[in-house]
């Protein structure tokens, strides 16, 4: 299925290649480079590129293109999901998935890729299984390995591989048994010029970090499960029980994993935590423009809005910005044409405001339309949908685990049209 994989950085350097069948010359990537150039923005590269003899399916993540080479029919999503799994595995192993960490751990990277695919078909992609086959790097181990010449490759078949709970390794032991759940919600919204919500929805995930000994069987219940109608689960979750009782019953993988993701659609009223007043105008004469943006709290449920950032992709003719911010700092990058206003914490007493003038390329016609604003924010201890975890029960083990739930709301794709 998947013939080869090439990793290419943002600058267009091919820094790693791996072939699961015969070797495919890296010149096949020329087609990718061509498409990359045409797309201007890395996000705009088409995910599937057709070449005379191959198909290139790629994803762009953490400033790296994962370009896979396909020769025969395969569902494109299959490949895309797999490539994301590869990136997640790197992140899981090395803390982050970047060119540097991949180069630093190149031996493990190859070992991982070798185990993840056999003849182009996924073999072991569960993090718990992989970690038994190939131990993640630690300073001590890499030192020992260098001295003794041994490697990270495990010598026995991971227990999970054969059990019917492949995601959990056997014989887990912890002195402190703990289970943490992070309910993270992102608001995707489009507000129009006047500030009315054109569209808003919530994308939520529950990330878990479970460090429990033995084979715990957990049940997580919500105060208001009816909020969730569109959900997808980690394979460990028993779907039947969700269907019948609206509780999440599962034997967790060991360590970090995403328990579920959900989607609360526009039908339900989605609270918008801030309002934005803006006025951006370009003048017909004088090659200049005005900008005035003010932000204030709207439906914050009594919590503080933090990490507030406003990003504006300016039209190409905007040369510079001469602005003053009552709070935070702003920066205009004349190359990327991105105006970034980092506000920080939103103080309801003193509303932040950014205003001043923009200077345009002289002689050029004034821009047709105004740029839209992208908002980034964070609210701690709040799930904006109102979702609340009721309780977590553990069966199958005798000890008493430490349990914790954290809520965070963030702005996802939050855009204000102007």
């Amino acid at each position: 299925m998947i013939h080869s994989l090439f990793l290419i950085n943002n600058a267009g350097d091919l820094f790693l290649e791996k072939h699961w069948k015969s070797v495919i010359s890296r010149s096949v990537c020329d087609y990718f480079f061509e498409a990359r150039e045409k797309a201007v923005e890395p996000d705009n590269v088409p995910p599937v590129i057709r070449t005379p003899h191959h198909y290139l399916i790629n994803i762009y993540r953490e400033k790296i293109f994962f370009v896979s080479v396909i020769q025969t029919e395969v569902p494109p999503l299959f490949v895309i999901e797999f490539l994301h799994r590869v990136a997640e595995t790197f992140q899981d192993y090395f803390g982050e998935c970047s060119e540097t960490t991949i180069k630093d751990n190149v031996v493990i990277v190859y070992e991982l890729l070798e185990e993840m695919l056999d003849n182009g078909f996924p073999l072991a992609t569960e993090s718990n299984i992989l970690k038994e086959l190939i131990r993640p790097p630690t300073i001590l181990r890499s030192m020992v390995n260098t001295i003794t010449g041994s490697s990270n490759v495990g010598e026995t078949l991971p227990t999970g591989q054969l059990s019917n709970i492949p995601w959990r390794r056997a014989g887990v032991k912890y002195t402190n048994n703990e289970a943490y759940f992070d309910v993270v919600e992102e608001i995707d919204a489009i507000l129009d010029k006047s500030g009315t919500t054109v569209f808003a929805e919530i994308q939520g995930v529950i990330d878990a970090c479970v460090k429990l000994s033995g084979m715990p069987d957990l049940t997580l219940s919500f105060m208001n499960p009816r909020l969730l109608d569109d959900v997808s689960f980690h394979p460990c979750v028993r779907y039947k029980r969700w269907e019948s009782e609206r509780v999440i019953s599962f034997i967790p993988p060991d360590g970090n994993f995403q328990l579920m993701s959900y989607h609360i659609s526009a039908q339900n009223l989605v609270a918008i935590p801030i309002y934005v007043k803006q006025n951006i105008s370009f003048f017909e004469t004088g090659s200049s423009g005005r900008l005035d943006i003010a932000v204030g709290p709207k439906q914050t449920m009594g919590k503080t809005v933090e990490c507030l950032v406003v990003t504006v992709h300016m039209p190409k003719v905007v040369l510079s910005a001469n602005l003053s911010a009552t709070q935070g700092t702003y920066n205009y990058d004349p190359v990327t044409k991105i105006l970034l206003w980092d506000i920080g914490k939103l103080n309801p007493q003193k509303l932040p405001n950014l205003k001043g003038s923009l200077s345009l390329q002289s002689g050029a016609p004034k821009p047709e339309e105004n740029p839209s604003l992208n908002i980034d924010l964070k609210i701690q201890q709040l799930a904006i949908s109102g979702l609340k975890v009721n309780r977590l029960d553990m069966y199958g083990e005798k000890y008493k685990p430490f349990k914790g739930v954290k809520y965070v709301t963030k702005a996802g794709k939050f855009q204000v049209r102007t």
Partner: protein
Amino acid sequence: MSASSAFSDEKGGSASEPEYGHDPASGGIFSSDYKRHDDLKEMLDSNKDSLKLEAMKRIVAMIARGKNASDLFPAVVKNVACKNIEDPNQLIRASALRVLSSIRVTIIVPIMMLAIKEAASDMSPYVRKTAAHAIPKLHSLDPEQKDQLIEVIEKLLADKTTLVAGSVVMAFEEVCPDRIDLIHKNYRKLCNLLIDVEEWGQVVIINMLTRYARTQFLNPNVNESLLEESSEKAFYASDDEEDEDKKAEVTTLEKRKPYVMDPDHRLLLRNTKPLLQSRNAAVVMAVAQLYFHLAPKAEVGIIAKALGMFEPYLKSFYIRSTDPTQIKILKLEVLTNLANEANISTILREFQTYIKSMDKDFVAASIQAIGRCATNIGEVRDTCLNGLVQLLSNRDELVVAESVVVIKKLLQMQPEQHSDIIKHMAKLIDNIQVPMARASILWLIGEYCEHVPKIAPDVLRKMAKSFTNEEDIVKLQIINLAAKLYLTNSKQTKLLTQYVLNLAKYDQNYDIRDRARFIRQLIVPTDKSGALNKYAKKLFLALKPAPVLESPFKDRDHFQLGSLSHLLNAKAAGYQELPDWPESAPDPSVRNVEIPDWSKCSSRKDRKEKKVEKPFYSDSEGESGPTESADSGNCGESSASGSDESGSGSESEESREETESEEEEEDEEEEKKKRKKLDKTKAKKQAEESAERCAIHTIHQIRTIAPSGSIKMYELLHRITGEGLAVEYCFSRQPFSPDPNMVAVQIQFTNNTNSETKNLHIEDPRLQSGMRIREFAEIDVLAAGESVTVVMGIDFCDSTQAANFQLCTHTRKFFVSIQPPVGELMTPTFLTENNFKKEQGKLMGMNEILEKLTLGEKCVNEHVIVERVTATANLSRVPCGSDKEFAGKTVSSGCLVLVTVTTKEGGGAQLTVNCEKMVIGTMLVKDILQALSQ
């Protein structure tokens, strides 16, 4: 073959390329290529599994990277094919097969074939999975093996483990996707296992089953079209024609008996539905396409929620300026398809904001989308047209050009009402430079020149002036315009037309020259011109049908949804056509499976799996519904899993294990499993009362470890020093039941005097800190000449420090001490070969002690060595190990002690001891060395 084979000497072109990534094999160990291969050979020849495994992994990695590994070929085949395929460690067997099947050299095809066949009936499902993976590799190497490989596939398809299912279906799809008959007997099993198969396997299986269902079941929508005509039409944009067909069909079908869905068809739909909640988008997509292609229309709605497909989700497809272009285009497509009378005003308002976008490709697509909405929904045609006309004054030329093209198409539908728009566009020709737009305007004016009789000749005049500087498509349209005007208004335009045609006659482009010549002959009457001249007006000014504005995504619905071919709208290699529903259903009984017959399950492993593999979710209460009777084998299995799922926890599981352990079977493999379970049980219950534990201990002892070696007696008190009382002791190697952390010491008192000795007991023990002692119960009387045996327990804290105490009789006190040999500080543990390796892997480095030795003369065979080792240390041999491996743990703290003796030819041997307690390890090495070299 040679070009792509990693073992051949010509390399696939990568050798000359610069090295970017580091070679995984160069992990700081081997300096040069030459030496590396030597070392790899040595590693392959070694007796240590870990080294072999490591070597094979490196070779696979080398091959995968296109490195030349040809000089390793003999070593690999020798080792891999001959030895490791039969290795007791399943991971090694699997790796060996992976290496072997990666060698792309035709000579080894027969060996590979053998190895695959062997592995396909391996008892480890992991190895069987690897066998399934190897099948396509061999097939691509030598397609002639297809028939034999199909046999293997058939065999593996019958496998009942979830681990194998995905991989074998993948092999099936690559090697023999047309052999749908192989699926019949496995169909229900695959449906039932599906939920427990790993994600990637699920995708492959669902896609295959979609195809299967299309050949075996009847179209569920045949009879329903009458009932459902009104609903959900919008979604099936392409269904109009189909519906027509169906209506025709319905009349013929009405006489037939009503449609009843095959229970197996229902089973597939039901068992895939929960997978819509998968985290893996590929799985969700696979289920969605399955429902799209197989489900009755009324049920397709269920995929809508997961996909967010229908109207209520309209706003989810609103576009942000930061979306990638391809997402924008797709969203636009969805919005356009969702547009109807009710929502068109909202959608158009939304489209208006898109037109202002900075992304010009996207603006062009938006304009086309507006055009499509206008054609589809008559009510808004004028609104759209007006909106588009406004765009004509846009400063961006691309926007204007695209608008012109779309307006042209819209005008064609009702030109008479829009002469003002045509006039407006005629004015634009002065400003618009985009050739496509200019060509479109010219065509419009020519086509509708009768609506703008005054402007048209003037436009031609201007164009004649600029003719030579125009692009080819514009030139063609100028000729076209000239011809049409000549036919309708020759008085005004005759000269102009002649002029244009003359210019065209000498154009560089032969297409234009041809066209000019052709048109001149057609429209200008001469003596030579034939009959066609009369029809020129009809030819040029025929009423042309209005164009249909079509989705760029149309015409691809004959491909299976979600496939690469569907995405590209072109058949990719290896694409399997989705067949049409059969006219009449093939015999459904082919899927019936006989009730599993034990005598038929000839291989032992099949039976074992029945018990061991409990699907995690494939809970099928009610699920197997209609097929229950037909497939009772599966039902039995599922009900067991049902109880498992209810989370009844460890107790029920334990009890099941215990009952299982009571069954008697000579099957060795079975035995091993059970012992392991018993061992587990033991571990679990350790916290409970000791009595129960003791019982298990004894079972454990009896079943696994025969009390090892002859027991050596030590003297505690010589009869002379003891004034007639002789005391000897030995380490009985039995668990000390009152306290499992103590070593049992069996003490034998012999009264050699002529009188009774009374009140034998222990006093004043002097112990190192941490050490404990559990005295034996006082012996009241020991008659003359008699002897008595008691057991006491001492916790030596895993050290060889002596336990000092006083042995008292009614008259005397003797100061005695017991010092244990290191080998007695441990107790046997049962470990399987795999666990042993795993544990050993954890005890490397400082915890591992290696010694070379020469075996003593008497250590001639394995038996003697085993005896010597077990006599020296209280360990048990790991069953079935390839080397002589022994395992135990220290009595006090339970640290594992692992001993391996590997013998070489000529009396050489190597002793490895792995133990966390280094002191114990060192001492044990010394003792065993001594025992073996004597």
